């Protein structure tokens, strides 16, 4: 029986911490797929830097989760030796990158989410979660700014770029709802004042998205996006996560404990 199937109620925010770590790791890993393939050198560097920030954030969360878990758990065993159904990331972050417009819009939705989430997580009664949030927020602020500028540039750009970001919106919007639907552990830790009540950040998130969309001459996407139930957070993923893990975990699975 894996950890995923045992419903342990405890004050230790292990599951919550893993959820935050998995979001950052999978998003960071997806963005890293652009390294060496960006549309121009500066943007290749930018997206690789953002990937690095996110993977760094996930390391901080994994290290803390490993400490909470004990029993020889390490950041590496959490990242490399869990199965897809044990990952607690939202579905949005595991979706394939698609074209530049889809990657940008996905990052914009996610950065806006992290921006408001970390602002609240700073007030967590858990000192370590608060410290990681404080550190990460500075970086996420840059991610939000960068992705916002790109959404505006693509939306208010050429006919082609506008068409592409609208296509991206059609594909991604349904996945945004999951961010604000709390999983069982998010509800539990929000009540303990350790975690954030995600439903409470939706207003700010909507406001920011509408503000940037207006500048980008994109239609306001309000009123949809709540169709998807809270799936990824509870370990029910798309087949895309399996493919990411196959790549990411290959080395540790083939050569356990390998270091370089």
């Amino acid at each position, binding site marked *: 029986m894996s950890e995923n199937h045992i419903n342990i109620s405890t004050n230790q925010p292990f599951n919550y911490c893993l959820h935050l770590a998995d979001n950052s790791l999978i998003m960071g890993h997806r963005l890293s797929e652009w390294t060496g393939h960006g549309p121009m050198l500066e943007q290749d*560097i930018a997206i690789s830097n953002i990937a*690095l920030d996110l993977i760094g*954030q996930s390391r901080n969360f994994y290290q803390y989760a490993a400490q909470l878990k004990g029993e020889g758990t390490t950041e590496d065993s959490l990242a490399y030796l869990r199965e897809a159904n044990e990952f607690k990331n939202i579905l949005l972050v595991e979706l394939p990158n698609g074209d530049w417009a889809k990657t940008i819009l996905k990052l914009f939705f996610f950065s806006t989410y992290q921006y408001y989430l970390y602002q609240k997580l700073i007030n967590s009664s858990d000192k370590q979660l608060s410290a990681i949030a404080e550190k990460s927020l500075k*970086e996420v602020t*840059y991610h939000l700014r960068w992705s916002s500028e790109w959404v505006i540039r693509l939306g208010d750009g050429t006919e082609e770029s506008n068409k592409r970001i609208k296509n991206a919106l059609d594909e991604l919007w349904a996945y945004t709802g999951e961010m604000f639907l709390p999983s069982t552990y998010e509800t539990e830790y929000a009540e303990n004042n350790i975690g954030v009540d995600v439903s409470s950040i939706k207003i700010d998130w909507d406001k920011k998205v509408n503000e940037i969309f207006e500048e980008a001459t994109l239609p306001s996407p309000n009123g949809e996006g709540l169709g998807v139930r809270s799936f990824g957070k509870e370990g029910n993923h798309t087949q895309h996560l399996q493919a990411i893990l196959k790549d990411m975990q290959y080395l540790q699975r083939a050569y356990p404990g390998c270091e370089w």
Partner: protein
Amino acid sequence: MILEKNISLKKIWQILEQITDPEIPVISIIDLGIVRDVHVDENNVEVFITPTYSGCPAMDMISMNIRMALLQNGFTNVKITQQLSPAWTTDWMTEEGKEKLKVYGIAPPVGKSIDQKYLEELKVECPQCHSKNTKLLSQFGSTACKALYQCQDCKEPFDYFKCH
């Protein structure tokens, strides 16, 4: 005993001053402001460092260099602890450090990072010709902590150490 401990502490800080940032070899980790504290207890030394950026690959290198430098000076039991809070900001960089950056050709962080204003457009001075007529080429530069700028007067592109 207390005197001995103080001598050790002083010596350790002096050793730490010799350790440079692997990405920017002109400034020391003290200039950078990432060494939070040093504890000495008999033969045990604990150094507390704060990462500049979550994903900064230089941190592992810096930890190793601290360990090596202390070892070479006879401190065998060294523990390095990463401390995340309070989060590192560019405000912790010393004035001397900022000056060294400029001489090296990297524009030092402008202003304070206390509030969200660090995201507003800032006048960044060209480290080559000191013109303030510069423009942002990319928010992300050669490393996570830098942005890429270009001087409109001398046309030279340069790195800017972002205010965080």
